[in-house]
């Protein structure tokens, strides 16, 4: 099989990925297929490439794996992020390790370093169909994690991972069938696979915290809306808008923020101006978020007292 066949698939991206250059860049072309693998294994990797291109929640990241492998990032329906690291120790696809890790933020999974002290935990997941070729097994895991809320109803450890807060993940190393376990050094994922420096992260912890608070504050429900009237309706709209904006900003990677991208496109303005503008916007967003949260909590209190 022509190993370049996977690269040809790069052109057939999903409509979701077409308008988003950062997703088309991280397409199925990033899969490393070893030409020495047997034809069924290579074919199964083509199937995996199709799954990646056809599913907006699954992306492949570039890695350095001369013996073959893959690094996938999956966003579950619960909003949790998963990383599937596939490495072949021998180059024959017979001794392959598939390590699944999860986190609440994407940046926790794509940074360098081990999982010690990071809010990242491994998930002890394995497919029942071990006889299937590598690509099929990885596709099964990726698709299950993309629909993680439903998977959680069958696999309790996935439910426990979704239920755990970010703070709890720091102390948990592994989710197993027997419950969460402390970190296991032998389950370290192969971080050396990254062949390029990760993109610069704009760490803005305060904004992240604001977002977490937002996610914990339930939206105004129908009863509260009825009682509070038009003001509440406007507030709900604002809350939805802010939550959406915050989700966008908290990704913290410049290409994900269209406004900043537009500023960078202007050749007259240096890059640091764009960064300052982003930081300023982030601060304003955080202030707005805090004010709105306070207002919502006051209205909710008024509703309860009434």
């Amino acid at each position, binding site marked *: 099989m022509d190993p370049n066949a996977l690269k040809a698939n790069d052109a057939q991206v999903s409509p979701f990925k077409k308008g988003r250059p950062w997703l088309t860049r991280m397409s199925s072309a990033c899969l490393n297929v070893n030409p020495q693998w047997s034809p069924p294994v290579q074919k199964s990797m083509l199937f995996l490439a199709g799954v990646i291109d056809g599913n907006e929640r699954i992306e492949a990241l570039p890695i350095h794996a001369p013996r073959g492998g893959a690094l996938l990032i999956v966003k579950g*329906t*619960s909003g949790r992020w998963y990383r599937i690291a596939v490495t072949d120790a021998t180059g024959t696809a017979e001794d392959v390790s598939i390590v699944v890790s999860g986190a609440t933020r994407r940046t926790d999974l794509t940074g360098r370093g081990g999982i010690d002290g990071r809010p990242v935990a491994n998930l002890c997941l394995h497919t029942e169909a071990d006889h299937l070729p590598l690509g099929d097994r990885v596709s099964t895991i990726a698709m299950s994690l993309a629909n*993680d*809320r*439903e998977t*959680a*109803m*069958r696999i*309790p*450890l*996935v*439910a*426990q991972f*979704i*239920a*755990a*807060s970010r703070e*709890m993940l720091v102390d*948990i190393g592994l989710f197993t069938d027997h*419950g*969460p376990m402390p970190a296991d050094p032998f389950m370290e994922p192969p971080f050396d696979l990254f062949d390029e420096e990760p993109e610069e992260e704009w760490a803005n912890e305060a904004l992240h915290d604001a977002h977490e608070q937002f996610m*914990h*504050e*339930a939206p105004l*429900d*129908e*009863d509260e809306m009825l009682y509070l009237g038009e003001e509440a309706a406007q507030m709900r709209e604002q809350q939805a808008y802010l939550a959406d904006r915050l989700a966008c900003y908290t990704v913290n990677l410049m290409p994900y923020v269209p406004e900043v991208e537009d500023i960078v496109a202007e050749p007259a303005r240096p890059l640091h101006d764009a960064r300052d503008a982003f930081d300023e916007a982030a601060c304003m967003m955080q202030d707005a978020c805090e004010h709105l949260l306070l207002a919502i909590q006051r209205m909710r209190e008024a509703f309860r007292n009434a």
Partner: protein
Amino acid sequence: MHQMDVLLVTSPTASALPLNPALHPWLQGTPHVALLLVRGASGRYYRVAVYAEPTVPAQHAVVVDGATRHTDIMEGWSPHIVDIEVCLDEQQAPLPTKVVRLVERLMDDRMTAMREPNIAQFIAASRDQLPHIVSFTNDGPERVEG
């Protein structure tokens, strides 16, 4: 109890709380002695109903229902409310003490979920999934037949 931010429901509407007849046939018509509303750390709501037979002190039942919204849980019985199987503390303690311990576990539901997978599955489930589930048991979710 007030310090724990738990709402003791005393309104007449709430006292006429209907239960899912398919799940608790033996409790139909039995008045409950306490009805508590708990909001867990995950943002989920829990309704703890304590039933006790006044003439037979040892006979009691504690039913825990869960929902994602406050309005759902106050509705009595709706498709968006699910039954949650819980175990009371087995130690020799008066019923109120056991109920308070249960309420504490439900308030810190994220942590409880690490020991009780059915609580984790309830937290992980979306509101849209709940109408298809009758109860979260220790053996996994019990789905609606058909």
